[in-house]
């Protein structure tokens, strides 16, 4: 038996969420007293693959074939399942990223495996194999037992730290048979906003709501986020009014995030919004209404006008950074 972790690359590089998934998978392999194998698909330099050795896999399978240079959900799932077969892996771990969310269910069906997505902790293995995962959009957790022989786990970003576990990972080419019928989707274009941190796996997030009064006032939010290296987010009314793109909407019907720091500016904290952000480690709320429900779940709060408080924060941050 072994544990297989899929290491998702973006433009030939691995992100922090990948190292989290490898660290997490290594901890599971240790629990199971077995070894960890990683699989990478796409064009990744050998030096970047070697980098994975820091986090514990004994072997890295490298799939570098022309048809799979860019993401094809169906074919990638087939290759990962085939690798699980070759490596006799009964547990497959992925990041719960946008691509991971598309892959994990297909792999689970191929392996007749139970799938725990949005995992936030290591499995408990006291006779049953159970994984704690987010449910009800952050309002609760569900302890989910995977009762099947094979298991698939998709780990939430920022839920499990990166842990170094130096090994000398052997890099092997994995020759995958790619079926033509698995290549039904074709990527025509990739648009990346490269100047900004990506919201789902951002460690720091600056978010603003209707209290900002209009899209023209987002300059100071962008500036604060820029100084912190944070991603920007918004509440539902703001994206509904097209002040900001839907991809920035966090909350129950937007995306759920769990950054180390979430700064909410001019957001009252309706239950639907809180659902998407309540697993943030530290929450700062800036609102001129002292009765705003958000203060009840905040760690730090400032009762004040965003148009006065945010510029002061920007100045203080500039001074702090020297």
């Amino acid at each position, binding site marked *: 038996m072994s544990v297989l972790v899929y290491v998702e690359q973006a433009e030939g590089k691995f*992100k922090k969420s990948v190292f989290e998934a490898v660290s997490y998978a290594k901890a599971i392999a240790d629990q199971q007293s077995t070894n960890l194998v990683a699989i990478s698909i796409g064009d990744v330099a050998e030096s970047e693959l070697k980098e994975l050795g820091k986090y514990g896999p004994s072997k890295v399978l490298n799939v570098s074939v022309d048809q799979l240079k860019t993401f094809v*959900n169906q074919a990638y799932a087939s290759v990962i399942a085939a690798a699980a077969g070759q490596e006799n892996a009964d547990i497959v771990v992925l990041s719960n990223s946008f691509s991971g969310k598309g892959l994990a269910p297909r792999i689970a*069906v191929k392996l007749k495996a139970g799938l725990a997505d949005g995992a936030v902790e290591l499995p408990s293995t006291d006779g049953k194999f159970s994984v704690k995962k987010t449910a009800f959009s952050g*309002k*609760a957790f569900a302890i989910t037992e995977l009762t099947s022989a094979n298991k698939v786990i998709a780990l939430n970003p920022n839920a499990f730290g990166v842990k170094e576990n130096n090994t000398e990972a052997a890099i092997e080419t994995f020759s995958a048979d790619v079926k033509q019928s698995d290549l039904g989707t074709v990527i025509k274009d990739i648009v990346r906003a490269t100047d900004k941190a990506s919201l789902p796996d951002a460690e720091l997030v600056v978010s603003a709501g209707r209290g900002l009064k209009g899209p023209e006032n987002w300059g100071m939010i962008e500036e604060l986020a820029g100084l912190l290296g944070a991603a920007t987010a918004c509440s539902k009314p703001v994206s509904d009014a097209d002040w900001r793109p839907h991809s920035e909407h966090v909350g129950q019907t937007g995306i759920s995030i769990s950054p180390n*720091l979430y700064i909410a500016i001019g957001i009252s904290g309706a239950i639907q919004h809180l659902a998407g952000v309540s697993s943030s480690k530290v929450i700062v709320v800036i609102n001129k209404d002292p009765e705003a429900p958000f203060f009840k779940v905040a*760690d*730090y709060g400032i009762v004040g006008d965003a148009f006065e*408080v945010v510029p002061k924060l920007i100045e203080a941050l500039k001074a702090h950074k020297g």
Partner: protein
Amino acid sequence: MKILVCISNVPDTTTKITFTNDNTEFNTAGVQYIVNPYDEIALSRAIELTEGGKGTVTVINVGEAANDPTIRKALAIGADDAVRVNAAPRDAYFVAKQIAEYAKDRDFNIILTGRESIDYNGNQVAAMVGEFLDIPSISIIKKLDIDGDNATVEREIEGGKEVVTVTGKFVASCAEGVAEPKIPNMRGIMSARTKPLAVVDPVSIEEVTKVTKYETPAPRGTVKLIPADQTESLIGLLHSEAKVI
């Protein structure tokens, strides 16, 4: 064009989530149920794509008879007919198998779901249906356009988007941006009562997951309020006390 839209019956977004029976069951007392908001987006786009005699929209739900009002709501929004697979939805694997079983001989061109249900947040059903049917699946799309047998979608990725094309049958899970949710009008509500709602029996499939317990997030300590005229001290606190910057 025939489109199948998969809908979940979920607690209203304002529901305070609690559990009973030693935290092993969701407390349904007083809970209002709705069509999962993302599924409404998928349904609304399906209706737009088939309007004016260009096709039909069938909604499918896996659940017991108590779900019928939610299914009627989907019919009121504008689906042509509905089917309910008469079984408690055990998990996504079970639900996806039922949907795939229903769809396999019925020649749907497109199968749509919401990006996730707001109760179990899986985003599993779309890709699992795709796998059971051995057709492409695209998860978390923000735009869906159809031109004959070809579809162009925009898929969300970290910090951007991918434009993806697919030819022939496919499954996709829809997020905000695909369509504005449609509100049922009076005519829709009236006609929903008489639209066909078929009930079919489930097929059996092995159990792969089981929720054994629920937990609610640990309450936070009380908020530390910083006077507005000492705003700058927040930076120091975040740096040296919270250690997050």
